[in-house]
């Protein structure tokens, strides 16, 4: 119902063309929103262009060989990114392999099985874990996690699966092992991305309509069958989204990884040997890099990290879409 007063106002407003253009806040508001969104795009492009331009000396001198070269020798001005790329991928994947099932289990427990009183407490703790700054994780890693957790695990792995006589084709657990290692970095990253995966997956599972569970139970499913065959498939795309966020954090994580990975720019198959990540080498060496080529090499690593995150995000996003498309009935 439009009152007479409002109708009068509306009629009066249609006077001048400028007035008409401005009378609705819609146009201006729309403009402001578009501007805000465009600024995001501009930021993205700006960062990419800056990295591209500043890395020019390295790109022209080495080209694509930069990605596959394995030597990093600042004194001899020989730069190769392979050890850092491999290090970043290895530690992130290791973290994901450990954190994904754990996080999913926590989420299922919180959403499906946990008594309501405990749910809020555990949920709060999980979110609290996500809020701890990474440098604190790094300190904890150096003084507690490595000596009392990583070293026993690493030594056990080295003595069992890493025995070169018994398992000559399993180099990933072979020594020597001193503590600071890709294993330590992967484990600490797993701890760091666990709350992200657990908290988001829990929210996704809680958002699954009650009717779905009731229908499954009514058909005679057990609770186990309900969870695995109804609730999880329904929330799959959301859970994948949680994994992407976790992976994103693992790829870019700098401080905690730098403090536990050992920072050695060498390719080695063993998870027990020290490694290096792309983010770490930039953080470590930027302050003292002197020559234009050295600077450009570090910036090009930043560029590669930028592209890698972009690529992985696109891949993961398309995965989410394809999963979401396969189960059309769940999206009302």
């Amino acid at each position, binding site marked *: 119902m439009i009152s007479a007063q409002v109708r009068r106002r509306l009629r009066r407003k249609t006077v001048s063309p400028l007035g008409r253009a401005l009378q609705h806040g819609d146009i201006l508001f729309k403009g402001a929103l578009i501007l805000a969104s465009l600024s995001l795009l501009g930021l993205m492009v700006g960062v990419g262009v800056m990295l591209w331009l500043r890395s020019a000396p390295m790109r022209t001198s080495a080209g694509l060989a930069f990605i596959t070269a394995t030597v990093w020798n600042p004194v001899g001005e020989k730069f190769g990114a392979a050890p850092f790329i491999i290090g970043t991928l290895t530690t992130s994947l290791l973290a994901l392999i450990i954190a994904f099932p754990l996080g999913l289990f926590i989420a299922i427990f919180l959403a499906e099985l946990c008594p309501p009183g405990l749910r809020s407490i555990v949920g709060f703790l999980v979110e609290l874990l996500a809020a701890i700054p990474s440098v604190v994780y790094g300190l904890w890693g150096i003084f507690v996690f490595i000596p009392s957790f990583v070293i026993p695990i690493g030594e056990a792995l080295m003595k069992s699966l890493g025995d070169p006589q018994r398992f000559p084709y399993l180099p990933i657990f072979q020594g020597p092992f001193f503590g600071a290692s890709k294993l330590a970095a992967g484990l600490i990253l797993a701890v760091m991305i666990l709350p992200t995966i657990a908290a988001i997956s829990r929210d996704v599972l809680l958002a699954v309509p009650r009717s779905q569970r009731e229908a499954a139970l009514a058909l005679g499913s057990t609770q186990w069958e309900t969870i695995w065959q109804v609730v999880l498939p329904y929330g799959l795309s959301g859970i994948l989204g949680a994994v992407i966020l976790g992976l994103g954090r693992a790829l870019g994580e700098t401080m905690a990884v730098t403090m536990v990975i*050992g920072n050695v720019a060498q390719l080695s198959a063993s998870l027990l040997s020290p490694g290096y990540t792309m983010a770490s080498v930039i953080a470590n060496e930027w302050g003292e890099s002197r020559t234009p080529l050295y600077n450009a090499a570090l910036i090009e690593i930043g560029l590669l990290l930028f592209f890698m995150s972009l690529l992985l995000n696109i891949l993961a996003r398309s995965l989410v879409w394809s999963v979401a498309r396969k189960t059309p009935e769940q999206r009302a």
Partner: protein
Amino acid sequence: MVTRKLVFISLLVVALVVMGCTPTTQIVKETVVVEKEKVVKETVVVQSTPQVKEVAKEVVVTATPKPTDAPNSVELNGSGATFPQPLYEDWAFAFNQRDPSVVINYAGGGSGQGIKDIKAGTVDFAGSDALLKDADYQEKPDLQMIPTVAGAVVLAYNIPGVTTTITLDAATIVDIFLGKIEKWNDPRLAALNPEVKFPDLPINVVHRSDGSGTTNIFTLYLSAVSEEWKKGPGAGTAVDWPVDKLGRGQGGKGNPGVAAAIQNTKGAIGYVELAYAKSNNILYAKLINAAGKTVEANIPSTMAAIKDAKFDDRLTAIIVNSKEPDAWPIAGFTYLIVNKDYKDCKKAEKLVSFIKWALTDPAASSRAAKLLYAPLPQEVLPRVVEVLDKITCNGKPVVSQ
């Protein structure tokens, strides 16, 4: 009525958008000004009783700009090496007490950052542990390095069962860092330390992961005593460590990172700054120096190392592996980088007087010694002062007290 209101709102939005497009600093300034006015106004409104009036006055006084903004004061900004940062900050504080019109800010960030900054002209001076290269001088002939203090680098270790100070010589250090000496019970180590019982444990070498002047000094030493090191990894703020290839090396971030890695790794050895090792009670080795004498790292032995420092035309000197009998062999100068000509005469004058004070005043030297930096030898001071006196502003000599 409503139309007018809408036009007003739209104008406001347009203004905001325009403001958004202008550089951010302007916006910040504007808001600050507005806030200040608000504060003053509010206090004025409040003053009804005499007591409150007093308070209001005080508020206004504290709201007035800091001495840095006063017409006669000068702000000198520097950035660079983190190794001398505690000392530069201490000097800046002390100099500000003497001459309140000068405020000196020194931001760390590393030698490389300092060199980038002074080349770009964003700072008035830079700190650097590493020497400028020929290419740097060709690019900016205006740069001048000035030595300030020397520091020593020591080898810290963690050998289970060994709680005494061990002794090393140049050859064993090189071979440990080249990876040729693999275990602690190597006969060469035993020969140097007959009283120590070394365990059968692989040696893990800890180095700096971040680019560092400490690494530069240490690798300069390794290059000075070993041809193989010089031809192989060489000297620099970050090098390609041979032990890393053997899987027996690791990098720690900063002195604390290296110290923590040594502490956590059985059989580890690594290099840290003397000042850091000493203030944290870390066990570090004695060395046999170039004169064949076993020496301990401390201020007197660092001073001995810089006694025969030969400064070149650029006022730089490499002092590793000194021939002096009491000299600690792994030591190096840290430098300030200044311009030979400044645009701002006030800044140039104050900068010159600050550096002169820091290098020649006994009070400044004692502050350095307290922080375990070795001050410049007396013999070099006239040359440094001569160079400082040549600094000009717009081509004219700087008037300095």
